[in-house]
């Protein structure tokens, strides 16, 4: 059963089409993240689910009910905003009461709901404060509390962590994850931060220019990105893209491209078959963490290892890992190494490339082959 179904949704602002046929569904209890760069339409889509924006074309169901023309208050949803949108003149308690009073919930239930939610979120001590007297994290918590008192069918989050500093953001992210696992409500979560999407969601919809590029589980989106946009957007630092040719290599197919010294490199595909016939142009996508300093142990551990030699141009230690910029042909390729045995600037390193994790894209359609 799905508690949210979005079918072929379009949205126009005047002549500008900002959403072009979105299809997404969230099963009951699922945590769906809408992720994409700013302007991709994710916030508009969320506003349409909430009923704050009208639907130009298509259908939105919450549960089994078509809600296209249902008022926001009657959709049985609760929303947490990026700016928290706490009513500034009301205390925390009044903020949480406001919705229930508007809907005419009986007094006893109101009191019980405040009691339940404030102890759940541990904000009892804040109930009589005004939003101006709260820290960023506390406001965030109160905003979630205001959503929770409703006990809705659907939770909507609109970039709720963007206004917090980095440390608090990680804390609150964990908190939201815990919250979801305890409450178990269907949740739609908009973010431009792919790490948030990866860590929180049970499924991710990656959006770009008004359409969904891929809608799948986080690891699948990461490992098998549907196209070059998704591949480049998910993961930081981003995936390396190397234009190459598919060539025959013994009984296997390999990707072939120029190394820094002008010689041709051949990397055998780990599972090359089907569309990956020799003789076509492709783009090899390889993530920074799938480049290693080559040695014999590596070959034993990872079955898909192929090698290439590249000069190291720049090294950036971050403590936990060391980034290295290396030259391949005309391109710079970024690798992520363990600090022990990391490359040194000027070194000509022999790289082990884990071809089992390589992605091959069509240069024209940019799709995964």
């Amino acid at each position, binding site marked *: 059963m799905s508690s949210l179904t979005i079918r072929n949704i379009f949205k126009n602002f005047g002549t500008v089409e900002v959403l072009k046929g979105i299809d997404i569904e969230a099963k009951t209890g699922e945590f769906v993240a809408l992720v994409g760069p700013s302007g991709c339409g994710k916030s508009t889509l969320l*506003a349409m689910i*909430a*009923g*704050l924006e009208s639907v130009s074309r298509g259908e939105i169901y919450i549960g089994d009910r078509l809600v296209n023309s249902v*008022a*926001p*208050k009657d959709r049985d*949803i*609760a*929303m947490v*905003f*990026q*700016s*928290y*949108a706490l*009513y*500034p*003149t*009301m205390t925390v308690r009044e903020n949480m009461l*406001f*919705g229930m009073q*508007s*809907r005419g919930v009986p007094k006893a239930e109101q009191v019980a709901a405040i009691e339940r939610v404030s102890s759940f979120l541990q904000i009892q001590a804040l109930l009589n404060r005004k939003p*101006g007297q709260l820290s960023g994290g506390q406001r965030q918590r109160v905003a979630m509390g*205001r959503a929770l008192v409703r006990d809705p069918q659907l939770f909507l989050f609109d970039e709720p962590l963007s206004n917090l500093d980095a440390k608090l953001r990680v804390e609150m992210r964990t908190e939201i994850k815990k919250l979801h696992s305890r409450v178990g409500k269907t949740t739609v979560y908009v973010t431009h931060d792919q790490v948030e999407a990866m860590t929180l969601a049970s499924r991710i919809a990656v959006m770009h220019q008004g359409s969904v590029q891929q809608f799948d589980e986080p690891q699948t989106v990461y490992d098998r990105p549907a196209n070059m946009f998704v591949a480049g957007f998910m993961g930081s630092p981003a995936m390396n893209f190397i234009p190459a040719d598919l060539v025959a290599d013994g009984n296997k197919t390999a990707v072939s491209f120029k190394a820094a010294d002008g010689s041709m490199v051949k990397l055998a595909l780990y599972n090359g078959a089907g569309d990956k016939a020799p003789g076509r142009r492709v783009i090899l996508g390889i993530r920074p963490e799938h480049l290693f300093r080559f040695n014999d142990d590596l070959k034993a551990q990872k079955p898909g290892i192929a090698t290439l030699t590249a000069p190291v141009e720049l090294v950036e230690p971050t403590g936990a890992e060391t980034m290295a910029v290396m030259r391949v042909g005309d391109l710079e390729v970024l690798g992520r190494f363990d600090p022990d045995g990391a490359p040194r600037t000027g070194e000509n390193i022999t790289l082990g490339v884990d071809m089992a994790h390589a992605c091959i894209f069509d240069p024209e359609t940019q799709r995964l082959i």
Partner: protein
Amino acid sequence: MADMAVANVATFDAEAAGARRRWVAGRVVIYAILVLFSLVYLMPLVVVILNSFRDLPEINHNGLIAWPRSFSFDSWFQAWGSYCVGGTCQGVKGNFFNSLAMTIPATIISTALGAINGYILSKWKFKGSDILFGCMMLGVFIPGQLALMPWAYLLGKIHLTNSVYGLILIHCVQGVSFTTLFCRNFYVNIPDDLIKAARIDGAGFWRILWKIILPISPPILIVTVIWQFTGIWNEFLFGVIFTSGTQQPITAALVALGSGGLTVHAYNVASAAVLIGALPPLLVYFLGGKYFVRGLTQGAIK
């Protein structure tokens, strides 16, 4: 340690001392000019206040601008209750209350309308709402004199000439452009997310206005009320033209009092009447002045 202490005492920085001297000299010049100008501005007020306590013969003898040699509250009582203006001898008391009866309702109504207009034009935009706002802003720039003829026609048609109610109507309509401008520009800075959150919470148009917008509004409402109150109270053109005698607001009555052709000019009574007429706006400024400055300079809540 000892070396450093000696060095601190011993150094005399000629450059720093010079800068300090120039700074002091600059301040002296600036304050002297400021004091001079404030004296120029205060002079008329001082003359009027002093004359309101002088006897008429003494004024006539020593001239309008002179140090008082007599002192009495007589002219204040006359101006308030017994001086003859335009045929009736009841002072400006009645006109003072006319002005209150006109200014208070007109201020409240125009401010309320401005708040509702501003709320709609910022938070419930519709197709053409920006154009409508632009048209309303014309009212800010068009001088009131241009509206005299239309108002004369309209008041005649609806039988509100020579009536305080007619003036209330005029001031509500003439003022609504300003109040809308003030409120709209204040509300535009209130985050839209607040309205969205309230809509999801189940609040409608009026409940959002009443429970969320108005509680944030005191800074701008105080500004608007002060602006409207002083503006309407001090306005005299409409009062002079559309009312006469006992229906006149105090500003119009002061004009009549000043130009009473037959009698001797009673400068002391006129001074007292002018001060009576100026008291309410002054009072409003004293009570709300700090909010006025604060409201004009501060943005909305973050």
